[in-house]
């Protein structure tokens, strides 16, 4: 499986927030959604903290 892109992680995080805000989740699902959301917050933040611009030069091809 390929790694989640930042965009995918951020979208997933925002959809977890929406699911939790809708308020119809059974308690166990709500807790799981929360935990997954927190993991995504961590993932997104780490990605931004560690990001370093990659510059590649294409020439002579």
């Amino acid at each position, binding site marked *: 499986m390929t790694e989640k892109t930042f*965009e995918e992680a951020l979208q997933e995080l925002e959809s977890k927030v929406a699911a*939790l805000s809708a308020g119809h989740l059974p308690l166990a699902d*709500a807790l799981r959604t929360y935990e997954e959301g927190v993991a995504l917050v961590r993932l997104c933040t780490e990605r931004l903290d560690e*990001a370093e611009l990659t510059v590649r030069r294409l020439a002579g091809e």
Partner: protein
Amino acid sequence: MQTLVSSPGIRDALSVAQLVGMLRSVVGGHPALTDVLVRGEVGSVSRPPSGLAYFTLNDADAQIPCVMFRAAAQSLRFELREGIEVLVRGDVDVFPAKGVAQLVARDVRPIGHGAFWLAFEQVRDRLAAEGLFSQERKRPLPKFPARIGLVTSEGGAAINDLLAVFERRFPLATVLVSPCLVQGDDAPASIVFALGRLAGRVDVAILARGGGSVEDLWAFNDERVARALARFPAPVVSAIGHEVDVTIADFVADVRAATPSAAAEIVTPDIGELRGRIAAASALLDTRITEVLQGWRDRVRSVEGRLRPETVRLQARDARQRLDGIAGSLKREGRRILEEIRARLAAAAGHLDAVSPMATIARGFAVVIRDDGALVGSIAAVSPGDDITVHVSDGTLDAVVEERRRTKA
């Protein structure tokens, strides 16, 4: 009389081909007639399918036919049209089939005021007619470009501006730099090549060049560049020259940016905003889960409260405290208030009498109570042999059930 045929010198006469050949040998390659620069107005133009271009170059007193061979004709930056004033560079030669001298043009450039704009307008109008600038062709930019292509000069200021913005706003990206020439005759082909090298490898591309004169920016008005932009598989943002400079490339690009820095900002999300979104999502997660948990806690409490005997004791204590409070205030407020309350109570009791079951009992009805204190409202509530108490208006009767009989419906 001498006949023409027998006249002297006839054997020395030249053929036409010989004469024209001589003419050609004198004119063609003559240093004064090679690589000449001529200024004149374009007369009638003919461009047959062979790819050659024929035109006459005129001024008030003379004209000379001109020809452009295919390669030269195809590299023209503008459309040859009657009436245009041009500068022609070429060599004079003699065209044997007609026996006339002609100018073999290697390069033709419009001159005078607005010469560049003439070419610009011609290319623009042609591409516009093909629909290359239409709004429907414009593609939306990706929100999170993982790979950004740069087509620009490696030596220019533009590339540093672009990279600085990417570094600051969106360091998550990978930037592929495809270097190219950005001015001069070879620039259009170089730009087309640099674009081709990026095709299929990026989510968005930026075509950039720092400021310069109209001539410096000329490559970006080239039709080949315009077509390469149009067929590029990902959206392209153009950032050419300063804000006031508009090139054909700007018309074809999906988005036109005023400067290279602006282009970099247009294609990237801002890391600060992204952090804000993450923080907002994180805070909402906490708020929502707290609400969910509080909801469940409240439900558990309310069920528990209904089950626990101490809740009942607690309620009794509350009630006692409130009564004590009332008693205290009664002492303080004095007899008048007490009297008023008594009067109100008496009035209320009068009302109560009217609706109380006691009044009904006084009229001869009785209330039957089981030995566990429950009201007997149905024969089903007791069994033969049960002890019951019958309440009448002035006292109670102890009794035993002997038999149950259902009232006939």
